[in-house]
């Protein structure tokens, strides 16, 4: 009897579906009302978009191996959201500029991360954690408590609203799907992607096969930073407001999402589809807890326990004795 093996992204999606169906049974759930179920599902997906985009950069650095991780993405999201808010000031013409600035600033911070990790041999965790503090400090300097700004109408239109009245899918989800395809192209159909996986499996083999390891490292972290910047841009387009803790709540779930999606935390294997499925699962968990009226503290404990369980299943290293 051949063992049926399910790929992790599919398993994650199944888990999401199960969780969603379970949520229907709860007091505030949709019960047997299909219309309500559909609108709730759409809502979940729409919420998952932002976590999904923020998890994209995380996916890249984790695939690159060597304990790659980006703890600065939370604060980068907040920073670029504020910058967008301040630059746009409600004017449609400034939106493109804000997007470019978000990408550039995120990319620069990512590049600094990459430089510290590659040239100064600081571990990715410690480097990005330290950077996160610096970015938060920068936010306070810009923020000074309050910022004045406004999101442009076109942003709200493109991100928060649906495509058209006949197609009730929010634009954000469509953007996410296109984004997902682009990420797939990057990982599976470019030299960069192939090199990234090679890096994650075995840096020595990669180097001896001609891969420019240093360049790849810098590029990966820079790209991750830029993607976090994009996430901040999208997020503010959805929420319309900014505050100091805008991005931070997405950080831990983004890592958990990548793990749920089947990307090995040791690197060298994984996909963005998996992270997308993971983002949906995590958004479901969070919204389930909110529906059950669980406080933030319980949410944190559940997330912590979830990651712990995940790595216990997927992340065990070689035993000392063979």
């Amino acid at each position, binding site marked *: 009897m051949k063992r049926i093996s399910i790929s992790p992204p599919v398993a994650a999606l199944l888990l999401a579906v199960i969780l969603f169906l379970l949520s229907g049974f709860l007091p505030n759930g949709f019960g047997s009302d299909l219309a309500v179920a559909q609108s709730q599902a759409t809502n979940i997906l729409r919420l998952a978009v932002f976590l999904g985009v923020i998890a994209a950069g995380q996916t890249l650095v984790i695939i690159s191996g060597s304990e790659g991780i980006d703890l600065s993405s939370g604060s980068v999201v907040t920073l670029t959201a504020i910058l967008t808010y301040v630059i746009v000031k409600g004017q449609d013409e400034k939106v493109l500029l804000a997007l470019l600035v978000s990408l550039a600033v995120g990319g620069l911070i990512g590049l600094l991360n990459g430089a510290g990790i590659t040239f100064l041999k600081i571990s990715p*965790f410690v480097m990005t954690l330290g950077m996160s503090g610096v970015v938060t400090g920068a936010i306070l300097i810009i923020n000074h408590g309050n910022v004045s700004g406004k999101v442009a109408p076109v942003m709200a239109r493109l991100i928060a609203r649906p495509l058209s009245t006949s197609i009730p899918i929010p634009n954000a989800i469509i953007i996410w799907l296109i984004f997902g395809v682009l990420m797939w192209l990057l990982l599976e159909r470019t030299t960069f992607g192939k090199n990234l996986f090679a890096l994650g499996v075995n840096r020595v083999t990669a180097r001896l096969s001609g891969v420019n390891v240093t360049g790849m490292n810098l590029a990966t972290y820079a790209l991750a930073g830029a993607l976090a910047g994009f996430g901040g841009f999208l997020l503010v387009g959805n929420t319309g407001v900014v505050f100091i803790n805008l991005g931070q709540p997405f950080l831990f779930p983004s*890592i958990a999402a990548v793990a749920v999606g089947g990307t090995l935390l040791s690197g060298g294997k994984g996909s963005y589809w998996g992270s997308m499925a993971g983002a949906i699962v995590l958004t479901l968990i969070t919204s389930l807890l909110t529906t059950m009226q669980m406080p933030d*503290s319980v949410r944190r404990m559940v997330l912590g326990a979830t990651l712990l369980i995940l790595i216990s299943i997927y992340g065990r290293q070689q035993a000392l004795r063979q």
Partner: protein
Amino acid sequence: MRRSHLNALAARHPALFALALLVISLLINVILQPNMFARDTLNSNMRVFLPSILLTAGQAIVILGGGIDISVGGIVSIVNTVLATRVGLDGSPEKMWQFVFISLAAGLLAGAINGFFIAYLRLQPIITTYATSFLYAGLALFILPNPGGGIPAQIAALYRDSTPLNLPLAFYIIAIIILIWLYISSTRYGKFLFAVGGRAEAAYETAVPVTLVQFSTYVISGLMSALAGIAITMLSGSGNADIGNPMTLNSITAVVIGGNAMSGGIGGVAGPLMGAITLGFIQNIVSFAHISTWWETFVKATIIVVALAAPGVINLFRSRRA
């Protein structure tokens, strides 16, 4: 000849660099705060540094053994919230002692949980303690959702005003820690620590009980975190679930400044303690330097990144010269 002599000295005694930094930061601090050595000011400074010092001692041991503990801040928060809620502002000294013991037990348990997942299930230390940090922080928030509570005023006063023989209480505690470390490092267990952190497979082949040693480092870290939690509760007199958050990165930075190798096997406890005090002085300097409040966070975070980068930069220059 002179230069290489200095290099060899630095390689054999990594804490020398920490000592140099300590002296420099001490001098600058004295310039900005001339009455620093007055009994009350010195006491005030040292008791502010003490929680960080205790935390750093535990972190130094974990890192020496080849691991890392990101959950230390979370354990501090748990202890703080437990004391603040269970003992309360009008609690009795007996209750305080009772819960001090409970806190120590909690710290040991939290450390044992970390140690179990890392040493026995062989999960990666960074991601595991990151997951448990969320778990512990969530628990702290659950115990005390809003800042409040506290400990009896007279106990806080005991901590604040204790100056046996006109020296701050903290001095004695630091001395005790160093004495304990000096003893431990001269026992077989001490050599086990260096062996496991230096090269775990070689230690295993030499019949060193690697798993047990790794487990013990996390238990020790848990205990020290609990002690730090008690100290900080006595310092602030009240409860706050976020109190441990900034302490984690501080403890890691102090260990790096102190000359311990992040990969393990090199260093000690004296260096990191000096690093913790140095960081304390630096933070004092920033406060006294009349930098606007908005810039303070940024400057302090940048200093941490610079401190983390320092060993890497020094190594870069050394290899360029070679």
